């Protein structure tokens, strides 16, 4: 029969086309997996090595699983105080920067004043200036005789530096929200008998709250891992990034990985929580 060779050829052709169509359909998936792996492997390594039981001083080779590092996360001298200092700085800096940034954003969006254009431009300067320049110039300022008489390098200089570079982020975040803000809402509130303060409390604040939260989280994240600027202005104080850097020179203990993992987990949890809340809101808006 003439059909026989044809049927013999067909499975092979079919295989080729099947492989081809598989590749065609999954190329994007494969690429995505590769990209994600590239992004995720370092984080996975950090987490994995927080469970390592290193043989020597260096936590670079896998030599056994243990929970010890997590149980005794502050078993390394200086780590706990560095972590506490970083949290304190990040907490205060994000609060202060968001408060100041909100006021600046309100002024920039709401009012026409002399120098508004310049302010708009200058507020971006800390974002575009190399951190090393920022850190070095701040140090010059703090070491200035007049300044150093009243302000020693230490907690306050770190805080001032962090607030400074966080403000820009706060302004940008809050401004974006304010630009889309319907001024008539505030007029309506005042029309209904609310004075300026009550209007701010009952209408303005709740409506820009998402931007304030975003600004707080952003500033916190930027502050807690800042190394360059802090390195110049810390004086005797050691923040967590400075501690890690110092420890890495003599062999970073696995506890550093523990802290790193915790920070990562907290950040991811906040993000997931945010997404879930947004999804629930969207759902309730759609169903009702």
């Amino acid at each position, binding site marked *: 029969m003439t059909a026989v060779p044809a049927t013999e050829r067909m499975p092979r052709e079919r295989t080729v086309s099947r492989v081809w169509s598989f590749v065609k359909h999954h190329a994007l998936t494969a690429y995505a997996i590769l990209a994600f792996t590239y992004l995720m492997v370092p984080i996975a390594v950090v987490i994995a090595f927080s469970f390592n039981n290193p043989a020597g001083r260096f936590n670079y080779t896998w030599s056994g699983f243990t929970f010890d590092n997590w149980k005794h996360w502050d078993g390394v001298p200086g780590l706990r105080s560095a972590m506490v200092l970083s949290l304190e700085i990040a907490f205060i800096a994000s609060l202060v920067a968001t408060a100041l940034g909100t006021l600046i954003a309100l002024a920039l969006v709401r009012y026409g004043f002399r120098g508004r254009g310049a302010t708009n431009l200058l507020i971006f300067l800390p974002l575009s200036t190399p951190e090393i320049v920022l850190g070095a110039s701040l140090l010059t300022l703090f070491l200035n005789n007049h300044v150093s008489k009243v302000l020693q390098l230490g907690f306050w200089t770190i805080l001032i530096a962090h607030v400074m570079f966080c403000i820009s982020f706060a302004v940008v975040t809050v401004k974006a929200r304010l630009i889309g803000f319907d001024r008539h809402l505030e*007029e309506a509130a005042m*029309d*209904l008998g609310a*004075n300026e303060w009550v209007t701010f409390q*009952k209408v303005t604040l709740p409506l820009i709250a998402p931007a304030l939260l975003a600004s707080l989280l952003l500033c916190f994240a930027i502050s807690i891992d800042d190394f360059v600027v802090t390195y110049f202005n810390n004086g005797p104080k050691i923040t967590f990034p400075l501690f890690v850097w110092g420890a890495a020179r003599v062999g970073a203990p696995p506890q550093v990985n523990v802290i790193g993992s915790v920070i990562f987990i907290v950040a991811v949890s906040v993000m997931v929580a945010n997404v879930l809340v947004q999804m629930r809101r969207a759902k309730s*808006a759609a169903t009702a």
Partner: protein
Amino acid sequence: MSTPDVRLVDVTKRFDDVVAVDDLSLDVESGSFFALLGPSGCGKTTTLRMIGGFEQPSEGCIFLGEREVSGLPAYKRDVNTVFQSYALFPHLSVFENVAFGLRRRSVRGETLRGRVEAMLKIVGLAGMGRRKPRQLSGGQQQRVALARALVNKPQVLLLDEPLGALDLKLRKQMQLELKAIQHDVGITFIHVTHDQEEAMTMADRIAVMNDGRIEQLGTPTELYETPATAYVAGFLGVSNLIHGTVSGSDSVRLDRGPEVRVSAAALNGRTGHVAVGIRPEKIELGNGQPNALEGKIVEQAYVGVATQYIVETDCGRLTVYRQNASPGLNGASPGDRTTLSWSPDSSFVVDSMEESE
């Protein structure tokens, strides 16, 4: 006469170099439905915003009843506003939106609940209190905005083009509803609009504004039947204006036509160049009335309730409406020569505008 609810005395508002409201004086009677009518940029919204307290006058005084309020912020005035964009608080429920003003005045508990629910019922939104504004249609949002303002029982309610965002059918319905609500609550309404039909449907009195000034103030009938200026005549409905020169105590010689009679009251002692105005529905096809003009029909449009004719005469093109009282067209068709006539009493006279002819 009782004290007016709102009184503006010589109010001027300047924004930098631009004069938005120019030496405007105005009395709004208590319990009336008052409309500020005019094209965009005529100063009507600025006037409203000054009454509401969102802008302060550059000069002049504003009184609410006996009390001078110029200089006072919005929250110290017994006035509430329905905004064009509604400005409902998106983060609050419908109930809380309506309750906002009452809460500011420390109304609490059952009294608060009762008043809000009652107001929601009046505007036809009973049972919708727990929804968020974004879950409502445009018309419903409009009602919430109205309820939110009215629940405070203000001395005066300001409405800034409140129906502008609604579609035509809903707008017509809301016009009548607003008028009914105003009648029920008896609060003075001041309504800003650029829609002459809307103003005429709802308002007891209308101030036609132009360039920051009041061009004419009167009832809808007065404004329509005897407009004071060519501007008012043109803004309210369609009008035919024919230029001429006064030739007697009750007659005007048309520039390129015969002498026509007008009422002496309409002429009001004017001399020299004037314009005679006749509304399209007051012109007859045929020579049944004392004043007549020859012409040729150039266009005809059937618009259901009436047929519109454009008639070319020596004095220019005139628009004529004939009501379609009996079935079919009225018989005249484009190309026909015809005589147009009207009664002296149904025409009005305005000063001739410099720029036209």
